[in-house]
């Protein structure tokens, strides 16, 4: 094996094992240095690929948060726990059960996009928001406040605009469910979150925040700001 052959193998597989490869490495200090550099690079690639899982990100953020926000911790742990439920325990149960009741579908969605639950001053990109609102065939008036996240999600088989706005105690989830008609508001409570589903026209809007979030002013603002054509 010559240096070129060695380096071609080594660049593709720094930990390649065979006799000829090992022999060249033992004899050639240049290639040995080359291999060590690549193995060191691989160690760092591995570190770079080990992105924090969303639950871990939240835990890490929690540690850097101001003490006043420490009271959120149970909520965040709850979220991590429900993530486990969603990807592990929940699957089998969900598969053999009838479609979940509306309240259950909404609280179940709390763990769906954990990265959406970020406290931030950054609004979602305008074109992202526009696309989601257009998909949902709804309009949001300007006085809505900071929308930090927007995505079309699936709730009980319907495409539903999922928005996050920033409340006083952290992010607040909105699910604008034009096809879920309800007669009266449904209160929600789960894992350190609370909220409600409001009847709006022939549909409903779910508003869920951290426990203790002042939802009333928000819900009023929201029901007045969201328009859909019936």
């Amino acid at each position, binding site marked *: 094996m010559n240096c070129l052959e060695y380096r071609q193998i080594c660049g593709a597989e720094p930990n390649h094992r065979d006799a000829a490869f090992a022999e060249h490495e033992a004899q050639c200090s240049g290639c040995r240095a080359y291999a060590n550099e690549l193995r060191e690079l691989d160690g760092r690639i591995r570190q*770079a690929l080990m992105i924090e899982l969303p639950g871990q990100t939240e835990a*890490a953020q929690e540690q850097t948060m101001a003490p006043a926000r420490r009271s959120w911790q149970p909520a965040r742990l709850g979220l991590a726990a429900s993530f486990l439920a969603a*990807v592990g325990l929940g699957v089998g149960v969900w*598969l053999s059960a009838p479609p979940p009741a509306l309240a259950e579908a909404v609280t179940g969605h709390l763990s769906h996009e954990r990265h959406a639950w970020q406290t931030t001053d950054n609004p979602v*990109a305008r074109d992202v928001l526009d696309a989601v609102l257009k998909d949902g065939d709804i309009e949001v008036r300007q006085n809505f406040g900071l929308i930090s996240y927007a995505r079309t999600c699936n709730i009980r088989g319907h495409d539903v605009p999922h928005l996050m706005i920033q409340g006083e105690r952290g992010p607040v989830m909105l699910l604008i469910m034009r096809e879920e008609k309800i007669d009266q508001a449904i209160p929600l409570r789960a894992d350190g979150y609370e909220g409600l589903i409001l009847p709006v026209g022939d549909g409903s809007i779910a508003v869920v925040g951290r426990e203790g979030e002042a939802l009333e002013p928000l819900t009023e603002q929201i029901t007045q700001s969201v328009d859909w054509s019936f």
Partner: protein
Amino acid sequence: MNETESELARRRRFEALTRAHRDDLYRYAFWLARDHAVADDAVQECLLRAWKAFASLEDESRAKPWLMTILRREHARLYERKRPDMVAMQDLSQRENAMLGSQHNTDIDDLRAAIFRLDDSYREPLVLQVLMGYSTTQIAEQMNLQQNAVLTRLFRARKQLKLALERRGLRGNDGGAA
């Protein structure tokens, strides 16, 4: 009654099996999609499919490659469906920022950004090799490629990453310290 019990036992077995690979599945999905929302969806779809096909898994020690194959297929399906708006909606740098998260290690962040920008066809075999510990034969199987193609891609992936780091003036692991 017995039927319920065996169904429950089966479900427990499935849950234990998938839980062990959950982090790997999520990270693989993330590096395929470079997007947390798509990764979430891909993992959930993968688990649903896997549960439905659980009976077809004969050897449970092969659970990881089995799940990884399902995940890859589900991601391709989702990505196809979402492609038009994803391209229009979220430019890479935006997703890149969302990814960098709360860790601040300049050296690793730079490398992560460089991996983020690698071509899909280079990034995936690298993830499978370095993160999942796949051999080049296993990568060829997972990606439906000839082994030579895998070797070429891995070689080029590392070359590009080295180049990217050198351009940023980082060498070895002493970047910024000296």
